[in-house]
């Protein structure tokens, strides 16, 4: 505060007869923000809404932003997997069993040809019965784009033959190699993504509902309800997962269609995973219950259900979303583990778990390592979800 400059600093004057005293305060007009004038940036910050602030905080976590972009891309891909796959789901090539990945080249002997692959020559080594493939540099098979390839049913709705990229006529395009029946691995990964990625979402939805419901009533009502739910949570956490999986899978009827089996498995995964969410909800509610806004709502006569759903839960929705996002990767991994134990999805359904299970034997590790490639998308998606969840959690309480 700058001192007023118009105050006289002379000695106290003789009081004039009947004349008013000089003012000791400034006569300049009053400016409330003179001390704390905010610049534009500060103003934007203080006037920002909660969601905007969360976004800013989220943006700081670079990995989370990259992950979010990656996941959006991946989910978009599974919308059009049929178009992106070079081959149809069940198509197999008897002459190209266990073919290694074909590299894409642009230049053939110094000349630019556009993306192409070299033809594959096949020979069966009768000594160790190994299928040997060699690149035939004389056969250039250019890749066709937006071509008409193998027939497929888009989401089971209508037939089409349009592919983003397919092999040259009479040629092959096995960018990630083939498996033991000559099925293109890249196509199988793309089709399998559809199942693996949606299992996570549906499973989390199930555990979300359960966790929210049970955790909510426990946290709000407290007392014996809280004690009962806490014991239930403890019980579900104490029982090891593997036996529960075995038992629940055994209960599933045998004559269910693949779709029903799929949903059954998501249900199983969801049923085991809700405890973490429930505990978080419960502890948050226990804390928030004492807040003033809750008290006010109660005094105004709101029913408990309204208070929970309308007031309490929205206040920590961001935390819930973060926890849910962190639960999805465990579902995806759970599906692969179930496939390994023989309890989950099995061929002819294609999912990443099924692909990994087929890759889990010594022949693949030693002789056909490209069949382990599906592990890469699994890792990337799981990591992406984890980082995204971390970012969301960091951003969940922007006021901290």
């Amino acid at each position, binding site marked *: 505060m700058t001192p007023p400059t118009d105050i006289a600093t002379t000695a106290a004057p003789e009081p004039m007869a009947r004349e008013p005293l000089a003012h000791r305060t400034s006569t300049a007009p009053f400016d409330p923000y003179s001390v704390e004038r905010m610049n534009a940036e500060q103003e934007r910050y203080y006037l920002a809404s909660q969601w905007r602030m969360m976004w800013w905080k989220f943006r700081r976590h670079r990995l989370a932003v990259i992950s979010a972009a990656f996941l959006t891309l991946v989910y978009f891909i599974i919308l059009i997997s049929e178009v992106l796959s070079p081959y149809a789901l069940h198509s*197999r090539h*008897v002459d190209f069993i266990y073919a290694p990945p074909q590299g894409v080249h642009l230049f053939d002997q110094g000349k630019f040809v556009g993306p192409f692959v070299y033809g594959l020559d096949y020979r*069966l080594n009768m000594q*160790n*019965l190994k299928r040997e493939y060699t690149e035939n540099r004389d056969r250039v098979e250019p890749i066709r784009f937006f071509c008409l390839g193998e027939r497929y049913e888009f989401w089971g709705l209508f037939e089409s033959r349009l592919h983003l990229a397919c092999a040259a006529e009479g040629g092959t395009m096995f960018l990630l190699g083939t498996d*033991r029946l000559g099925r293109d691995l890249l196509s199988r990964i793309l089709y399998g993504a559809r199942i693996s990625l949606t299992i996570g979402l549906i499973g989390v939805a199930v555990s979300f509902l359960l966790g929210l419901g049970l955790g909510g009533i426990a946290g709000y009502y407290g007392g014996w309800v809280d004690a009962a739910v806490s014991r239930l949570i403890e019980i579900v956490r104490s029982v090891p997962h593997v036996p529960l999986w075995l038992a629940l899978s*055994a209960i599933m009827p045998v004559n269910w269609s693949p779709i029903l089996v799929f949903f059954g498995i998501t249900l199983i995964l969801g049923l085991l995973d809700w405890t973490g969410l429930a505990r978080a909800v419960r502890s948050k509610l226990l804390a928030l219950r004492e807040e003033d806004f809750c008290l006010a709502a109660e005094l105004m006569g709101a029913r408990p259900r309204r208070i929970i759903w309308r007031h309490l839960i929205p206040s920590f929705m961001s935390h819930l979303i973060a926890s849910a996002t962190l639960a999805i990767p465990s579902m995806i991994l759970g599906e692969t583990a179930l496939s390994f134990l023989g309890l989950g999805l*099995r061929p002819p359904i294609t999912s990443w778990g099924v692909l990994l299970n087929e890759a889990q034997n010594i022949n693949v590790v030693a*002789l056909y390592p490209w069949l382990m490639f599906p592990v890469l998308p699994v890792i990337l998606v799981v990591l992406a979800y984890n980082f995204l969840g971390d970012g969301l959690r960091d951003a969940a309480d922007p006021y901290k």
Partner: protein
Amino acid sequence: MRSMPISLIPFCSPTLRPRSRPIARASLTFVAALLAGLIQSGTSSAQSYSDAPMFADKVASGDLPPVSQRLPEHPAIADMSEAGRYGGELDMLMASAKDTRMMVVYSYARLVGYDRDFKIVADICESYDVEDGRIFTFHLRKGMRWSDGKPFDAEDFRYYWEDVANNHDLSPTGPPSVLMVDGEAPKVEFPDKYTVRYSWSKPNADFLPALAGTTPLYIYRPSHYLKKFHAKYANADELAEKVKEAEQPSWAALHNRRDNMYKNDNPKQPTLDPWMLMTKPPSDRFVFERNPFYYRVDPRGRQLPYIDRVVFDIVDSKLIPAKVGAGEVTLQARNLRFDNYTFLKDGETRGDYRVRLWTSGSGSQVALYPNLNTNDEVWRKILRDVRFRRALSLGIDRHEINQVIYYGLAHESGNTVLPQSPLFDAGYANAWAGFDIDQANRLLDEMGLDKRDDAGIRLLPDGRTADILVESAGESTEESDVLELIRDSWAQLGIRLYVKPSQREVFRNRIFAGDSVMAVWTGLDDGIPTAETAPVEFAPTSQQQLQWPKWGQYRETMGESGTAADMPVAAQLLDLLQQWRDAETDETRTAIWQQMLRIYSDQVFVIGTVNSVPQPVVAKDFLHNLPETAVYNWEPGAQFGVYKPDTFWLDESATATAATN
């Protein structure tokens, strides 16, 4: 070991002149030696025996009697290509602790057993006589002993028959069903200490095969050991004490627990196998050591087995190919599949082993079983029409299956006997086994299934689409691969194939109950029968036959459950089976077999795909006497059993390798 029972007492006559005394002494020594030799060969058998160096100490110290007293008077002589040497350890991998029974299987020491031509010959018994196919007399080996030295004689057979099989507490359901002919129990006699006779009034053709079986019928027990647990022989208080200690509900339960010759998990139970169990369960590593009283010798009189020790390491089954490829076993075939071949072959130099390819003895590697007893009426009628089964069989591209999965090394055929069997005929193998889509479509049209829907799938008489749900036990990728290939070729017939993987128990129960329409499993268990084998797999005799479980159950339970075979062809097969049982000569039996095989293949009761699939057998370079090629089959064959593992031997490099490890 040549031992001279008579000491040499050189004659020395004082009347001979001193100069010729050494000559005289030498000539008289020679004569005495001759005499001694003659006398010795007169008092004992013409052969002398030797045993493993492993026992040298024990024999020297007196813990073990010398080998001539450990062997029976006339031990079994194993014939072999090259005589071996003693010593070494054989390492194998097993998938579960229950597999200690594989020692019994591989040892294949049976009362009578199959030889390499799958003919039944005497093994433990010295000889046997069969009269009219209903009176069986076994002559045991004199002086044969159990692994603890106690004698093996008719008492062990008597104990089994009177105190085990006919003891109400131990066998509440009576003697095993294979000993009952039309409900009649055998008359069991013991003319002397080394003779056993079983007789019935009607022929029992299953008796000898059961005795020679991989899972054998034991008609003897180590009586001296088991009597300790039998209420009739043991002291009541001591027995009660033992029962309490072992935490069993009764003496019968304790006896059953200790009497497990096949399961082979009791180190204290005496055995006749070449190697006896030394490790008490539970364990991850079971060690079997040489049986000092084993009854077989090699042609040079050396007591078998050659190998001192066999070790079973228990490992998860999925890891077994990896361990074998790393060279950690001496011999392995179990849990190795043909698709491991490339991997195993690649590891040959690093692991010092060689992979042989034996032939699987199954009638078909992957076979489809249309359930003729299915509850679905429409499907039942369709499946019972032979044209449908023939069409399905014609719609399978076996050549493709062979090329894709078995590199063309298997044999494309229906579900029938293999070329190695004397009953084989190419006609049976090729019956309806070609790939002819046109003919198949014609058959289906002829049957009345000529209506199709918009997608080209045939319609059943009641309007449903021809969707066949094939149930599988879900354990084999091979099965699902073959079914993938079949799905595509059946699509050309207008038939849709769906696969439903399941659990083994649920899978089987659904078939038995008639809830499933078609199942996938392996084909014939015995692909190498002879005319003397009972053709039980070709007639509805057992619930385990997945194409007619209820008819089989009817026969098994003697009419108590299941349904009687109501298809004339099936009844005909049962009739032929009975004729075989009543047959007297080999020619009759062969003729009946041919008839049954012809009907079975022509009717396509089971749709086979390929057989004679190669089975990898891995053996270290230093293992000898293992055949280069052979048939690998469970029953008969006992996988390695008929090839007599007690004649396998390891050469010097075995110990060298062990030392460097």
